[in-house]
């Protein structure tokens, strides 16, 4: 008997969307409430993993042709870039800055250089988790 995955696929489509958008929320929430780059990244990786698990590995790879090695590299570069940025102002490596700005329509907004740093962490975590798992899963031997 051929196994029927209709239920799994239908639910996954909805759940993955929720998980992925929640991970983005968690990422931005991290400055004031629980969340942040690491947690957001892990959650995002979980969402993608759900897709890979319920659908076929090859199918998702064609839909999402992402090279996770590059994701790690880009993440690390952003992280180091955030650090080098502070050297330009004569501060030690990885000094973070923040200030409050009036943005049109949004009112006063706090902007900080920890955000790009958190993006870096996010990318590396997603990249590492998926690269490791996909490599092991894709092993033919």
């Amino acid at each position: 008997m051929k196994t029927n995955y209709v239920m799994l696929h239908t639910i996954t489509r909805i759940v993955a969307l929720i998980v992925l958008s929640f991970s983005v929320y968690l990422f931005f929430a991290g400055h004031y409430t629980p969340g942040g780059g690491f947690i957001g990244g892990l959650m995002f990786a979980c969402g993608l993993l759900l897709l890979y698990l319920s659908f076929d590995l090859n199918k998702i790879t064609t839909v999402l042709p992402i090279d996770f090695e590059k994701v790690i590299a880009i993440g690390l570069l952003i992280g180091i870039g955030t650090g080098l940025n502070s050297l330009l102002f004569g501060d030690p490596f990885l000094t973070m800055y923040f200030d409050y700005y009036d943005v049109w329509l949004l009112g006063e907004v706090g902007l900080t250089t920890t955000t790009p740093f958190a993006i870096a962490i996010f990318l590396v975590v997603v990249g590492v988790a998926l690269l490791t798992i996909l490599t092991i899963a894709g092993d033919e031997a």
Partner: protein
Amino acid sequence: MSLLHYLVLSPFILAIFIPFLYKWFRNVHTGWFILPLPVILFGYLLTFVTTGQGMEVVEETVPWVPSLGINFTVYLDGLSLLFALLITGIGALVVLYSIFYIANKKDEPLNNFYVYLLMFMGAMLGVVLTDNLIVIYVFWELTSLASSLLIAYWFHKEKSRYGAQKSMLITVSGGFAMLAGFSLLYVITGTFSIQGIIEQSAQVIASPLAVPAMLLVLAGAFTKSAQFPFHIWLPDAMEAPTPVSAYLHSATMVKAGIYLVARFTPVFGGMPEWFWIVSAAGIITLTWGSISAVRQKDLKAILAFSTVSQLGLIMTLLGLGSAALYFDVANEGQYYTFAVMAAVFHLINHATFKGGLFMAVGIIDHETGTRDIRKLGGLMSVMPITFTISLIGLASMAGLPPFNGFLSKEMFFTGVLDATELPIFNMQTVGLMFPVLAWIASIFTFLYCLIMLMKTFFGKYQPEKLEKEAHEAPIGMLISPIILISLVVIIGFFPNILAYTIIEPVMNSILPGFTFEPNIYHWHGLNTEIFMTVGVILFGSLIFMNLNRWQETYFFLRERDPLNQVYDKGLDGLITGAQGITNIQMTGLLRDYFAYMSVFMVGALMFTMFWFDAFTFDVNFGMMGSITPYAVIIIVLLAVVSLALPFIQHRVSAIAVLGVVGFLIALLFVNFRAPDLALTQLLVETVMVVLFLLCFYFLPELKRGDFKPKFRWLNLVISISVGLTVSLIGISALSLSQTDGYESISMYFIENTYELTGGKNMVNMILDDFRALDTILEVLVLGIAALGVVALIKLRFKGGEDV
């Protein structure tokens, strides 16, 4: 940053652009882009040369790690200036020469060559121009690296790779020993600044660490300057393109060791150990090198051993001259400074004639296709200009008048003869060895110069043995050696142009406090030195005339240095030994590795705790909050599930149960109001379960009968001790925090997080701001681990590959 800092860094900056210049201007030889840099630097450095007496010392500091006393301090005195001039001057000539020597071919990427060359130039300038030992060490190892890369430039040749590895292993290990020596000096004096150490030299000499520090520093100097028995890398380094040999392996890099010895003479000079080790190593190298050179058949190999022996000569003189510091400045110390002057003068002379000779040999190789003296001969009429260059260079090297080599050889004889009169260090008895060995070495020096000249340019021209039809080199290739050889002649006739401009400032930095009158002239009257020279010429010619009889002896047939066997056997033994040790511990079983890690962790923690007597069990339960029933339930569940784990026989169920442990811990975090931790734990646990399931899918079924009972007992002991260690440390930490009034660091974060970072999530702000460096390094480790997994799986050996 002063101009001098940019001077050191400019080669590195230019190197960044070389690959692009190479790509965009494929038709232009990349060397033309490099050439202006050393010329400009040389010109700029010339402005520091003074004609009057006394040179102004320039010192500029840029802090690097000031808290550890590591600063990028540029210190330009006579000694640094001499070396910097050599590096940029010879560098410019070598770059010009290389443009014609290394063809712009597709399969030989020129950009690599010039990037390595610039890297070397910058690193070498860094070594001689900085005052801080740690900065010197960094540049020092960079020169080794650049040298090794340049030796392996034609990396498809087996011999090139062998030579590169050998030079790397020997010079880098020496450099590492030197770092240890620098650290000891720091322990003694509390500074990394050389000038600071020189000021405290009396304290250094009195310290019990003086001899170990000295030995370690000398290990670095001797390996770099190819002193016996570390000289074996230099002949093998001749696999490098000839411009590199002329630049790194005769004129500059191998003199870094000389530089270091000269720099540390004010510190250690006057110690009998320093005197004996430096001068004995020098004289042995001198003799060994010159005798080995005689039996070589490859022109470059002759020059390599000749370089070894000449470096030994300079080293001997520095060692003998250091005795001056034993005496008072006012007393007879003055008399013995002469040896140092000879060393400095010969250093300059050697750079000129040996550079020229290397280039001449390069031309011969380039135009005939061989460097084997058995195939060459009769080139005098074919290559007249190269012949003239070689004739003058060789005459200078052999110590014949009127060239500069004659002057410094006479001064060398004077230096070793004076040394026998030293009233200290047993020199009046054993000291006779120095003039005798020096004389013997000079005979062999004369002999190999004669062999090089006669076998290459005289005799019968044998076009059938050559790969190409020989003809004179293009003019561009001849310019550099002609300049160098003109210097040989000019310095030979007018040695005193160097006297107050170069030599005197250098002497002031090697032997501070003395006054010098460097007057060099040819004719000293009929003294011992002139008779020694006559004897050298006589005996040298005599041996050469009977060379045919010598050539069949065992000594002549064996070209390779016997010390190479020690290196080769040692390297093989090292690899086999390392593999043996690895095989003992690497069983291929994960559980063994876990056992190692746990045992090590328990051992290290327990040892530290006992050593500092840090165990306390004095916990005040009254100060702790009450335990909620939820926590009790979760902990009981945790214990039950954990205990059940070892009894589960099916892997997949074991993973699922392990997952339960993880989720329970997450619940525990919730109970203690740590939402961030709980969330992280949940997510990590989810990802881990997927990962484990995937991994175990590929593993064989777990069988029960596999374990031996004894092994299981050991595992039990290990697990119990891990649990015990962690619990004891936890209790001790709690008790300490209650009794000794340690304030928790979390108070600082609670008070300052919003003020300093503008964020309210403390955990995140610690990760992203306060401890961002830790975080970036952690994700770096994560990235490396992921790439490691990829490498292990995708690049796995299929069997049958050559490892």
